[in-house]
């Protein structure tokens, strides 16, 4: 009796081991076998959140798996990013790789628990979001030059609302102040919405905001942009000049949305995603959805390309840190 | 009983001093340009004053009302167990997974805090776990961890 049970048990054990081995080795082939968790390091309702919720179904269909979006907000994106890059590199926990937590936070905020160069495997870049300098429609400044002239004559008199601290708009203002040799005071707000509200109420003279936050105000004629921070003029708003045209190319910083994972992610998994994302972003339906958000432009880059771009930005920001207003 | 209040106010006093010290290290700035430590320092200072005032009052006046004699024994161990159980739940959630954790948790509580029979505890645990699964995983599709057993 005993012998039979021993044999039976060892047989089951062997079969189990073989199955496990077989499953383990075919990991890359039939990845993803279970839902992949993509961490969104911002709260629900934010632009990044809406972006992913609008596009993840399409991406999921191309990678033939299920994507589950998880919000882990906090610390300007640091909390969620840290959670994901410190997770197991089995390909089932990824993160929306936004520029700010990866290029600005490590410079601006102390004790960020990851190294954007060593601890992250970059998978792809999906889109870029443009910012701009907005003023009320009845503002005395009709062009950027007028603004600069006034600012030069009246240092510290102009107040600019800025969305977020240790964020791209914060950096944009800092760089602009430096390059235009002016001293525009910065008033930080928590979100694009709040920044725009204060501009509308006349509490600030201008505002550095993301295009989606201010889109409806432009369309209703309440505000206009003195310049936009984008390499080319925006298709939605061709009447606004770019910062580059005005001679402030360094201030033309955009923020990117991408996908990344912890270090040590298998290259096979990375290329699967790259392909799926590239295909998704060619779909006109997806492009239409993304562009409806306003000021968001599809900008596909491979993992390597995105990494290069982000690390270059990181270096720039390291250099810029002392000029950032509010950082003494 | 008045003595308890004395200790409470002492606690707040210490807490506020600690806060002020930490806030000071964060840079107070000037009144015209407050730094990160300004606000916590102000709040800490206010608490300091208040707790000092309350401390003196509790020393000066004697509490006349006697606390009613409790009829039942004070089961402090229940408090400890509950808090420990929740803490254990939190730490093991991501390793063991939602369902097993819930089951163990409910069984433990039912058995220990207000002692039931083993049968009741296990049945209660099962019902709760099944219901919880239905509500959280099926209806809400919340992303509670699945743990190493995959469920």
């Amino acid at each position: 009796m005993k012998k039979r049970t021993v044999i039976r048990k060892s047989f089951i054990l062997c079969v189990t081991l073989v199955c496990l081995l077989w499953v383990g080795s075919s990991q890359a082939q039939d990845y993803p076998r279970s839902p992949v968790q993509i961490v969104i390091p911002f709260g629900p309702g934010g632009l990044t959140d809406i972006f992913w919720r609008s596009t993840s179904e399409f991406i999921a269909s191309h990678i033939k798996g299920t994507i589950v979006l998880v919000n882990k907000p906090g610390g300007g994106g640091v909390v969620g990013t840290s959670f994901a890059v410190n997770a197991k590199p089995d390909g089932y926990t990824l993160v929306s790789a936004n520029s700010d937590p990866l290029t600005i936070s490590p410079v601006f905020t102390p004790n960020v628990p990851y190294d954007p160069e060593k601890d992250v495997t970059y998978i792809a870049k999906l889109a870029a979001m443009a910012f701009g300098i907005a003023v009320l429609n009845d503002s005395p400044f009709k062009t950027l030059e007028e603004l600069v002239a006034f600012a030069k004559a009246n240092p510290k008199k102009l107040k600019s609302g800025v969305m977020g601290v240790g964020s791209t708009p914060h950096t944009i203002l800092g760089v602009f102040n430096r390059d235009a040799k002016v001293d525009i005071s910065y008033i930080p707000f928590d979100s694009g919405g709040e920044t725009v509200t204060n501009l509308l109420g006349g509490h600030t003279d201008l505002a550095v905001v993301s295009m989606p936050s201010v889109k409806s105000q432009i369309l209703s004629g309440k505000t206009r942009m003195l310049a936009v921070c984008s390499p080319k003029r925006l298709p939605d708003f061709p009447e606004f000049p770019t910062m580059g045209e005005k001679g402030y190319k360094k201030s033309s910083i955009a923020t990117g949305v991408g996908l990344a994972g912890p270090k040590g992610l298998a290259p096979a998994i990375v290329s699967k995603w790259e392909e799926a994302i590239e295909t998704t972003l060619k779909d006109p339906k997806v492009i239409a959805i993304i562009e409806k958000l306003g000021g968001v432009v599809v900008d596909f880059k491979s993992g390597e390309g995105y990494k290069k771009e982000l690390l270059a930005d990181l270096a720039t920001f390291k250099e810029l840190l002392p000029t950032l207003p509010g950082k003494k | 009983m008045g003595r308890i209040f004395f200790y409470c106010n002492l606690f707040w006093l210490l807490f506020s001093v600690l806060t002020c010290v930490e806030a000071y290290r964060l840079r107070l700035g000037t009144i015209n340009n407050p730094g990160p430590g300004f606000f916590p320092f102000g709040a800490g200072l206010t608490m300091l004053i208040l707790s000092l005032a309350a401390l003196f009052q509790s020393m000066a006046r004697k509490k006349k009302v006697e606390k009613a004699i409790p009829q039942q024994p004070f089961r402090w161990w229940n408090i400890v167990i509950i808090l420990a159980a929740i803490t254990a739940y939190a730490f093991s959630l991501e390793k063991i997974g939602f369902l097993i954790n819930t089951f163990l948790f409910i069984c433990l509580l039912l058995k220990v805090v207000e002692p039931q029979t083993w049968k009741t505890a296990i049945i209660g645990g099962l019902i709760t776990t099944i219901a919880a699964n239905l509500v959280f995983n099926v209806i809400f599709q919340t992303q509670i961890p699945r743990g190493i057993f995959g469920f």
Partner: protein
Amino acid sequence: MEVFKDLLFGFGVVLQPMNLLYCFFGVLIGTLVGVLPGVGPAAALSLLLPVTFYVPPVSTIILLAGITYGAMYGGSTTSILLNIPGEAASVVTCLDGYQMARKGRAGPALGISAFGSFIAGTITIFMLIFLAPPLANFALKFGPPEYFALMVLGLSIMVYLASGSIVNALIMVCFGLILGTIGLDQMTGVPRFIYKSTTLMDGIGLIQVVIGLFGVSEVLINVERTFKREIFETKMKGLLPNREDWRRSIGPIGRGTVIGFFLGIIPGMSVMIPTFVSYVVEKKLSKYPEKFGTGMIEGVAGPESANNAASTGTLVPTLSLGIPTGAATALLLGALMIHGLRPGPLLIQEAPDVFWGLVASLYAGNVMLLVLNLPLIGLWVKILKIPYHFLFSLILLLCIVGSYITNNNAYDVIIMVIFGFVGYLMKKFDYEAAPLVLALVLGPMMEKAFRRSLMLSDGGFGIFFTRPISASFLIMALLILLSPLFLKRTRLRENLRAGG
């Protein structure tokens, strides 16, 4: 009148069977979401966002509006039944609502909550239609100095919120203010009191604190001794509010509506603040202020109405200016944007069916809420019949899951445990939780407004007094803070004595 014609048109849209169905689902899902603490309407809305692609814009709005209202009402349900605030705004409902449940009056509490919300919602929707544009413009005048003054006013009413020792309540306020500073300083990025914990980077989670302070501590208090007597009175005294209840509640409902709506218009105003204000107002106006906290129905009717009214109020800047005022409205805007609709002044012209459909759907949502929830009261009340030696474990489970789900972070549960213990101690030593919570919410807002104001004025304090709105708020706050000294000298002395 133009407006009524448009409104009828809107109703026509809403009353189509498909849309009614969406409304029903929205309210249903919203209520379920609201009952679960820690999951706010924002989370539910964002989960459903992909669904909205395949659904026409009007129906999307209807669905989303239903969820928002449903969630609000659901939050009150757990507050009343289990002393667990479903979301931050429901905290005040715990104070008297739960006590009513303890006395066997859970039904009337839930009922007046539903009716109050309905009445407030109906009235405020009409106010929305007629007053939105001028109100929105008024709301824009609120800059940082005005916010600061308003927050100071909010904290000053704390004097009237405290039922017991005022000194203890003030200590709680300071405690709340200090706790509110934990996290990355929003203005300079400097970490404050974080001690290398990523969980604390964004501050102590309000929901976790509140669930711990109210829900968990209540369980702890109940289990510390063998309960010979039932925690909840088994003889249910009626399922719906009776004549007497209605008589007492009409005033609070009306006042709550007004308070909620006008405070809700201010962009960025937490929905929680109007509920506190309403509670304090009712307490002050009542003949028996000392009974508040033991189950006074006015303490439920007023805040619940204020809650709903404030939610409608937050739609004012969203719809007329296209500015989101919180996560839920941001999602609403996002959903609109994905469909190519631009909220803002143009919305009415470009897509009248959407705008009026939304307005009509708000109303329909309120009706649906009532229709759905009144019968459910009987069901909810049965939950209280579960023997406490089993119920308490369910309550704790709900607390744990609620705390975890907000950020999918196990450490949030630890925060809840800590505050559960703290809340338990507070209950034993006569410290109140409400001032703590209010300070925790107001503190950060107040500090930011203060610092921003000084940045705007380059360090000058005059800014608070040269601007009419902020000056008037500050004067009011001063008056309120000084009034006890002049009007109720003996009461204050009594309270100080009690704190010793």
